[in-house]
């Protein structure tokens, strides 16, 4: 008898004691300032959490932030996003902004002459050419793959006309090419190393970046130390980087990551936490925590498989979208998980975003939830499936996939649709997506830049440029033509119009696939960390050149 009573009492006592702290309301105020106007102080070691391990060390080959966060500080790029204004592209190893020929078919870039690799050899145009040749024209026979080769399909050749000049020859004028040169993955590699072994960088580090490689322990940590020969200087002429060193702690469990910051073993995690984790940290560290938040270029899509009946019928697909009250969902879900803003195919409030006035005219994006649901019911009746039933494929990752899917299923239920949540482990989920063995799925997309060429990549015809990306499995030459036209349009205002037309066609008229809610990035961190500014993605601004630690 005694044993059955004591155990729960002890357990409750422990839970109560542990939860007391977490139950306190958050008291920390948001402090979005990066440098806060204070003069940076040199020295110290930044410790930060990375919640996955880099697969290989080769930025050209991988697509995960888990590579960028620990490894980007070892490398430079041709151009990068300005750490003080992440909407601007500034030169990195380039000496100045690129020069574009009158016919817009040749891009010429002058390089800095003071850039050295970590083995003290000087960087020249041959290194930049070898780097971009590897990214754009990978030597498949030698086992080199480049997931971003398609993003540079416009390039016909990379030339090095002299020691410090690089020239990109384009097949046609491209709106996105220049900003794509600031891709955070395009680490500048040594031509000599690549010539000796094109896969050398998969297991080795040697860049021109602000930090030298100082070792790593598999599954545990990654260390970098200041590069005394780094070429970068701040606006006062002080040599960068400010930090003496950094240490990335690989912590895969989100709660363990929170614990690491709460116990001050780590200062920051650059990808993001949930609202509840932010609140826990705020309550625990009321005087030591700063928080930066920003909209995120990541979104979940509802993807009906158009090769399966009845999802080959646009009315059914529109009904699925109409049934979802995104505005109410955004308010509710943003309290518990990392989604918030309602938007079309381009990030809300981003440079290509559709205005709310236009957005609410698209099926499923109107603010009158009841009217939308009535319209959805009518469409289902007209399509002959008033009691539609299907399996809804999702991956077994809680944040934000699970709450988003649960919300969708509930919304659909309100119009008579019964969706069974078919949760699969990521690999099996991917297999289903790629084999087309699903009815409706929750897909996702994350990018480093507000750029229609990137965000529309999933909308090309599935048998053509969208192969392996477009899991709605439709072919539509009209849509292909629209996407191609916006890509070639170099006038920004005209391009916004063209993108808006694509959104109306793809999300409303054909309702092929559509966003649920855009993600929202929350970074709570120790106030000692200065000089880092949140952006709308978790890929850029990770070379740590301007980060410093307040004493």
């Amino acid at each position, binding site marked *: 008898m*005694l*044993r*059955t009573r*004591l*155990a729960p009492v*002890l*357990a409750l006592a*422990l*839970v109560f*004691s*542990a939860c007391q*702290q977490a139950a306190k309301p958050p008291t920390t105020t948001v402090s979005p300032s990066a440098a806060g106007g204070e003069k940076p102080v040199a020295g110290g070691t930044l410790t930060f959490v990375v919640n996955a*391990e880099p*697969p*290989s060390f080769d930025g050209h080959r*991988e*697509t*995960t932030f888990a590579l960028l966060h620990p490894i980007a500080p070892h490398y430079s790029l041709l151009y990068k996003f300005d750490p003080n204004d992440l909407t601007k592209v500034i030169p990195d190893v380039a000496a100045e902004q690129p020069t574009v020929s009158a016919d817009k078919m040749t891009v010429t870039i002058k390089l800095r002459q003071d850039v050295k690799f970590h083995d003290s050899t000087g960087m020249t145009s041959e290194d930049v050419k070898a780097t971009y040749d590897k990214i754009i024209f990978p030597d*498949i026979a030698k*086992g080199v*793959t*480049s*997931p971003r080769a*398609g*993003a540079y399909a416009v390039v016909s050749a990379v030339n090095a006309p002299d020691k410090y000049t690089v020239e990109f020859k384009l097949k046609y004028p491209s709106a996105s090419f220049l900003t794509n040169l600031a891709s955070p993955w395009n680490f500048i590699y040594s031509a000599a190393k690549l010539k000796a072994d094109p896969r050398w960088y998969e297991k080795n580090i040697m860049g021109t970046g602000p930090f030298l490689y100082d070792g790593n*322990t*598999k*599954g*545990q940590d990654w260390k970098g130390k200041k590069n005394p020969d780094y070429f970068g200087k701040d606006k006062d002429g002080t040599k960068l980087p400010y930090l003496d060193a950094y240490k990335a*702690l*690989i912590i*895969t469990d989100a*709660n*363990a990551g929170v*614990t*690491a910051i*709460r*116990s001050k*073993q*780590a200062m920051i995690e650059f990808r993001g936490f949930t609202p509840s984790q932010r609140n826990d940290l705020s309550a*625990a560290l009321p005087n030591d925590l700063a928080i930066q938040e920003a909209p995120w270029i990541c979104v979940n899509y509802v993807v009906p498989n158009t090769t399966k009946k009845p999802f080959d019928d646009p009315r059914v697909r529109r009904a699925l979208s109409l049934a979802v009250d995104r505005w109410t969902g955004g308010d509710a879900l943003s309290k518990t998980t990392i989604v918030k803003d309602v938007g079309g195919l381009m990030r809300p409030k981003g440079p290509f975003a559709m205005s709310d006035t236009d957005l609410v005219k698209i099926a499923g994006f109107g603010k009158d939830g009841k009217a939308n649901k009535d319209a959805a019911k009518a469409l289902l009746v007209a399509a002959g499936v008033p009691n539609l039933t299907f399996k809804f494929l999702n991956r077994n990752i809680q944040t934000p996939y699970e709450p988003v899917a649960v919300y969708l299923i509930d919304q659909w239920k309100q119009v008579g649709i019964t969706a069974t949540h078919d949760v699969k*482990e*990521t*690999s*099996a*989920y*991917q*297999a*289903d997506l*790629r084999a087309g063995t699903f009815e409706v799925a929750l897909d*996702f*997309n*994350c*990018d480093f830049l507000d750029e229609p060429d*990137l965000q529309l*990549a*999933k909308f090309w015809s599935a048998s053509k440029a969208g*192969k*392996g*990306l477009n899991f709605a499995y439709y072919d539509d030459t009209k849509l292909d033509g629209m996407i191609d036209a916006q890509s070639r349009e170099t006038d920004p205002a005209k391009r916004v119009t063209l993108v808006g037309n694509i959104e109306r066609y793809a999300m409303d008229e054909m309702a092929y696939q559509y966003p649920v809610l855009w993600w929202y990035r929350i970074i709570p961190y120790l106030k000692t960390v200065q000089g880092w500014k949140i952006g709308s993605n978790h890929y850029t601004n990770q070379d740590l050149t301007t980060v410093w630690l307040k004493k």
Partner: protein
Amino acid sequence: MRRYIVGRLLLMIPTLIGVAILTFVIMRAVPGDIVALRYAGSSVPQDVIDQKRHILGLDKPMWAQFVDWMTSISHLDLGQSLWTGHSVIDEVQVRVPLSIELAVLATLFAVALAVPLGVVAAVKQDTWIDYAIRVFSIGGLAMPSFWIGIMMVLVTLTLWGWAPPVVFTPLFEDPVANLAGLILPAIAVGYRYSAVSMRMTRSTVLEVLREDYVRTARAKGLRERIVVVRHALRNALLPVVTVVSLEFAFLIGGLVVTEQVFNLNGIGKLLVDAVAHRDYPLIQALVLLLAAVFVIVNFVVDMIYVVLDPRIRYA
């Protein structure tokens, strides 16, 4: 005896080959592969995925992949991780010291707790002491070790602002830091482990205490402590040793969630990550390693039986 030992050692070979075949087939029957996973969520065209599959040899027929793997193993080469490209041996050996040390610490803690408490509970059967020990042991069974771990971290964080180090320090580099990192997980795991052993010790000691030779020992006028420790406990230990040993083998690779909670870079987490990534060479190597640990531990237990009970003879 020698023939028995040689026979047992030889029997390990078909056992491990069986495990290898099963693991190989089961993993390939599971949908999904590492390449699709690596590029999940990014705009990577299908031809890149196909190229990568070809480079990794995943487009070969299953039998050809099996022959390749067996050929490598016959050269004592466990292959390369498909995820990191590093040798499987490198991936495993960096995690082994932590897993072994945690298993040893948890076992020591469990045995130090279980055997004395189990004996006391048996000797003081149906008294308040017995009840208290039984409640304590039921608690260990009822609460998952990862939950105990979470509670420990929350309590130490809330009360002292302290949490175990998130980075593992090798024992010989800094013993204090090493212990600081492992003491809480060892207690969390060892408590549950001790609960099983404690209950086993109590019941076997109770059984032995009713044997005739114990009554004889008491009748000879031996002190109770000598009766219990020398006569009862040694005979009662056989099943306890079995439980403790099998638990030890399990701890080497089975502490996945506890390793997550304490961010321990151990074998269990590596195995789960390998399965999630469909990293076939790594999964196959780890399952073989864990199977070998179980087989060897079982063998060692059989040998310990001979030491503990001279009546046991293997032919």
